[in-house]
């Protein structure tokens, strides 16, 4: 007994040590698993199925070129069905049982806020590749979509100069619409304009008779449409047939739900959208992207800004993991904190901002013409996601895991 005990203990210790050393080594050799939670059915599917395809395209290109740091990429894809509860179920599943290294998830802001606490709970890392109302200051989130200071502080002053100072906002009645409308209100006031009306529409509403009349009763110079989902998109057809005839400004149309392709001209004529990418953008990088996309998905109806963001996010993640030498989240974030994680992709050169973990963008002003073709009256280069950093969010120092708005900024330090 006395002879055996040390041997036994040292054996156990040796085994434990071997296990300890082997575990990370094994993880380093296996594929890098990427969870993909996007709506492939339900109200949002028209705008989001293409995001999954963009991620598949990026994964194929990365794997063809030897993977990330020599490790192949493996996608774990679930259809979240435009349902916030599905996001929570599947987020738990990819983090707990699939044990993915990173998650690409979410279209609506309601779904993002539904899954974000779960990502925080399991200390996961999620890319949110959607334009949104801004303000998420969370170490577990990297946002590649455009935010209000990028889309509205370019769009609204331009529209006011072009068409006049009286603005009517029509927004979807949930966090995205409410907070976006708050941004519009603030920017209109800063520029000396007037809000002549503001209306919030419950998701799923498809009949706009009264709304159209309300707009006509005001002296609006243009209408800001922040409508979301297939049902609300019926507004354009109904406004056009009632001959409202006002220019429209939006951060979500065309670049997301390609309404100009789906509706009969001229129902979307005179719509102005600030977007960081749409397939009509006429640069060599964009054309090349569209060509590669159609080679893999010939029937893709439209390549929208979220598709480009998802594609860019895959490549940014690849770069960060390769520079960190591991998929460990702290190491990946340390690379991000260096402030030079950039990617020259379909929408031009973009960089991640270490303070907010949001992305800079080239913002294109897309105008829908009478025949629903697109022209670009203006392009703003390298617009940074400055607002969060300016009001005091600094993820390199602390992690509040909160969402801020202009009326509820971070508490003063």
């Amino acid at each position: 007994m006395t002879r055996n005990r040390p041997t036994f203990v040292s054996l156990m210790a040796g085994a434990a040590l071997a296990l300890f050393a082997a575990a990370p080594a094994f993880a380093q050799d296996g594929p890098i698993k990427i969870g993909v939670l996007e709506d492939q059915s339900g109200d949002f599917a028209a705008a989001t199925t293409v995001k999954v395809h963009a991620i598949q395209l990026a994964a194929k290109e990365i794997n063809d070129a030897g993977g990330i740091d020599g490790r192949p990429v493996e996608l774990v894809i679930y259809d979240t069905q435009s349902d916030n509860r599905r996001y929570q179920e599947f987020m738990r599943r990819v983090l707990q049982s699939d044990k993915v290294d990173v998650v690409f998830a979410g279209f609506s802001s309601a779904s993002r806020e539904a899954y974000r606490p779960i990502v925080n709970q399991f200390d996961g890392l999620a890319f949110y590749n959607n334009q949104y109302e801004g303000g998420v200051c969370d170490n577990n989130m990297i946002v590649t979509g455009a935010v209000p200071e990028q889309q509205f502080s370019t769009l609204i002053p331009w529209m006011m100069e072009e068409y006049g100072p009286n603005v009517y906002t029509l927004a979807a009645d949930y966090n995205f619409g409410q907070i976006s409308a708050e941004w519009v209100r603030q920017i209109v006031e800063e520029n000396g304009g007037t809000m002549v009306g503001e209306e919030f529409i419950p998701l799923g509403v498809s009949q706009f008779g009264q709304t159209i009349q309300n707009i006509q009763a005001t002296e609006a110079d243009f209408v800001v449409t922040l409508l979301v989902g297939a049902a609300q998109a019926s507004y354009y057809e109904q406004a056009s047939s009632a001959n409202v005839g006002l220019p429209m400004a939006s951060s979500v149309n065309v670049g997301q739900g390609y309404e100009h392709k789906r509706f009969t001209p001229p129902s979307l004529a005179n719509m102005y959208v600030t977007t960081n990418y749409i397939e009509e953008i006429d640069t060599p990088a964009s054309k090349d992207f569209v060509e590669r996309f159609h080679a893999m998905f010939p029937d893709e109806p439209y390549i929208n800004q979220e598709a480009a963001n998802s594609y860019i996010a895959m490549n940014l993640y690849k770069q960060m993991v390769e520079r960190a030498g591991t998929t460990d989240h702290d190491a990946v974030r340390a690379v991000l904190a260096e402030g030079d994680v950039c990617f020259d992709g379909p929408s031009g050169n973009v960089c991640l901002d270490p303070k907010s973990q949001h992305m800079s963008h080239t913002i294109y002003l897309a105008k829908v013409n009478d025949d629903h073709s697109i022209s670009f009256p203006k392009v703003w280069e390298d617009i940074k996601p400055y607002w969060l950093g300016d009001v005091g969010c600094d993820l390199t120092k602390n992690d509040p895991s909160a969402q801020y708005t202009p009326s509820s900024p971070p508490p003063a330090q």
Partner: protein
Amino acid sequence: MALFQSVFAMLYQFGDTFAFLVISCAGLAVIFGMMGVINLAHGEFIMCGAYVTVSAARAGLPLPLAILTGALVAGAVGMVVERLVIRHLYQRPLDSIIATWGISLIATQGVLIVLGSTMQGVGTPLGSIDVGGRSYSLYRLILMACALGLLGGLYLLFYHSRFGVIARATIQKPQMAHALGVNTGRMYGLTFGLGAALAGLAGGLYAPTMTMVPTMGATFIVESFVTVVVGGADIFLGAAPAAAILALIKAGLTAWYGQLFGQIGLLVTVILVIRILPGGLSGWLKGTTR
């Protein structure tokens, strides 16, 4: 002039909501109100009518004919569904909920898989008219006329045609009708088909004004169930006045407080009606006249 303008505006909003409620609930009033089948696939019959209408119109058929085709195809699909599924569930209302819900899921996902997440629409025809400085869609005025025409047509069909008399007899006293030589199975099938065709007609009529997606039926279903539940079993004594009252409540609240309160008003009304008048408006009207 200002008075005329605002009166016209209010009437237009009332008529617009009334038309939407009547047209979207007519099919359900037949299937759920008369036959007692809780049809959760009502929205998908509407979607079917809309998709067929748009496909036919894009293939070159004039819009009115395309709408008719949409209604007929939806009716035919309805008769097939009745024959295969609903027929076995007339005495089992709870099971029919599950079955029609399943049909609804299959239809929505099937269309998504086969036809994709969206389809290009046809655009609203006829343009707009100006009344007192505001412009209104002419097509929506046509829809109001269609709603009234639909009610008139259904009244003639159910009260002044042989089919209507036999259909009502079959549904009220199936054994007696059977004893008198009526093919009750066929009558049930035809009546269900009629309900489905009316749903398809709703889809066809509203297709030019809406986004074409597989889930489009869902935007009709709350309003149609609310109208039929408030109305009760009879289309003319129930659904029509229910649509008028609900339109007044919804248009009024929407005008004063916005869309959200319009929706809330609709749902509060149905809760109150279920509590106070369990038989719906028609049950109450019949009870007081008896």
